[in-house]
């Protein structure tokens, strides 16, 4: 009996497409009009918004700031998270389940709540500063709020759980027998990790890195709350331009820039993944 499964798609696909194209169309269209005071916009379209973004050092600096913050976040999440993911993936136990649940929990909680905690933990008389002062590492309490480091910390908290979950799934795809085979051949665990597991995981890790990078480029909450008004990343700038400055055209152009960047990164990651997959299939 042949069921026309494809027919099921029609209604939801139309809805999805309408929402997708409808929403993207309007703001993109708006971005081609220059904003005038008091919420009015210019009568005829122009590329002025875009040229301003690409030539104004302020916008370029914002893009650079957002980029290097996102790179740091992705590096931290993958760097600190991979050992966790690997150990959890290789040694299933009751502990593993519990720890993974704790990790999933952090992504079930809205970032704002994490930031409440971060602010208290990092304040001048909080545990971190007290410890640093006691150990003599600093002679005055320091603050991370209003610095790029603070935004990076907040974003790491936001993405760490997700990163670990992603890498956990990746490591799980590598059969344990490979580790065992390497061990039989006399490799130490460290060598096995470095020469066997890591190269196989690499495409997945790159995808994880790029995904977290992308998410951080578009992340708003941490930057807004921990940036202290000084660290204005692209998403924060977009929100301010739209809601506070009420410049719909410029906000649309900035959003288009962000969108373009993110989509480009996605294509790059897919291309890398495909290339590695084909290489891997060739060698295994």
């Amino acid at each position, binding site marked *: *009996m042949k*069921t026309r*499964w*494809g*027919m*099921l*798609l*029609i209604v*939801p696909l139309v*809805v*999805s497409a309408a*929402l997708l194209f*409808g*929403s993207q169309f*309007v*703001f993109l269209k708006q971005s081609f009009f220059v904003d005038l005071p008091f919420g009015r916009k210019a009568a005829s379209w122009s590329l002025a918004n875009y040229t301003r973004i690409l030539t104004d050092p302020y916008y370029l600096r914002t893009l650079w700031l957002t980029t290097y913050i996102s790179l740091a976040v992705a590096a931290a999440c993958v760097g600190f998270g991979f*050992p966790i993911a690997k*150990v959890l993936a290789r040694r299933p136990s009751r502990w593993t389940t519990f720890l*993974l*649940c*704790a990790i999933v*929990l952090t992504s*079930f*909680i*809205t970032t*704002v*709540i*994490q930031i*409440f*905690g971060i602010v*208290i*933990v990092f304040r001048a008389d*909080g545990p971190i500063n007290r410890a640093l002062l006691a150990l003599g590492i600093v002679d005055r309490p320091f603050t991370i709020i209003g610095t790029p480091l603070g935004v990076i910390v907040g974003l790491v*908290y936001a993405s*760490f*759980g*997700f990163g670990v*979950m*992603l890498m*956990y799934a990746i490591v799980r795809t590598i059969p344990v027998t490979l580790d065992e085979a*390497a061990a*039989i051949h*006399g*490799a130490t665990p460290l060598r096995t990790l470095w*020469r066997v597991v890591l190269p196989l995981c690499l495409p997945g890790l790159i995808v994880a890195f790029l995904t977290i990078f*992308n998410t951080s480029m*578009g992340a*708003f*909450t941490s930057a807004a*709350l921990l940036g202290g008004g000084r660290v204005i990343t692209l*998403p924060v700038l*977009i*929100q301010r331009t739209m*809601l506070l400055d009420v410049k719909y055209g410029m*906000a*649309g152009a900035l*959003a288009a820039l962000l*969108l373009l960047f*993110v*989509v480009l990164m996605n294509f790059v990651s897919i291309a890398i993944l495909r290339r590695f997959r084909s290489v891997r299939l060739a060698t295994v």
Partner: protein
Amino acid sequence: MNNAGIAPHPSPLPASGEREPSVSEAGEGSSVRVLRRIRWRTLVTVAYFIVIFTVLLAPLVVVIGGSFSAPPNERVVMSYVEFPPKRLTLEWYARIPHAQLRALGFSFVLGLGVSFAACLLGVPTALGLVRGRFRGKPIASAIVRAPLQIPHVVSGIAFLQLFYAVGDLGGAYVQGTTAGLFIGHVFMATPFVVGSVMAVLQRMNPRLEEAACVLGASPWRTFRRVTLPLIAPGVFTGALYAFIVSFVDVPVALFLASPDATTFPVELFNSMEQDFNPSSLASASLAAGFAIVLVFVAQRVVGLDGLLKPKTQ
């Protein structure tokens, strides 16, 4: 993989007198060395885990702990939270602003609605994409997956402007209403259901359905009795993530909410900027408690693997 540091493959015939070193070679000295190495390694691993998880969970612990912390100065309500708490109290819970409680309930109901709608849209989509035979599947798949790529800020701004445009044309404004928020969140949440159900469907053996057909069941009956139960875990996980996406969202809600329709994260966000006091920690702890329960329940229902699936591409 020749330079992998792995000892050369042993020849089939043992060469006389020549034996490559192997881990299993047991001499008294080397086994003790191995034992010490393992213990050292385990110690380092455990220490690393403790550090990472302490750091990871510290903010949450501080929030929940701080919500019970009594202010040192009785007369004055301050925005300063005493941590570690010197005295415990429940007063912050009693003082949770009515607006925050209302927003918490609103977010909960909104999340349920979004989850439901995402399933209504997502399950047929997944079925159509996996089982359907037609050209243009990659395009359809791309359209459906697209919201995952779009940063939430961009979605927020896009929908706000869409609603303005629609309102200007048709007279019906949905920005700042529950309906507007709902639409925006469904847009963000549906791909999670689709991905999750697709993953389960792809692993499902279609012959089970064929068998049901052969045994005389109608397509609807087959769907209800065979397919649906089998994809249920995928639907559940997808629905769970759809709920979470809506429940924790800040950027889109910031654009699409209004004093009429405010979500809980937006209330907390505003309270952090404007009106911070420990009663916000109390309501945040309520939400955190709810999340803990959710994780626990989900883990029981679909197991850990089910819980982690939708995040994969």
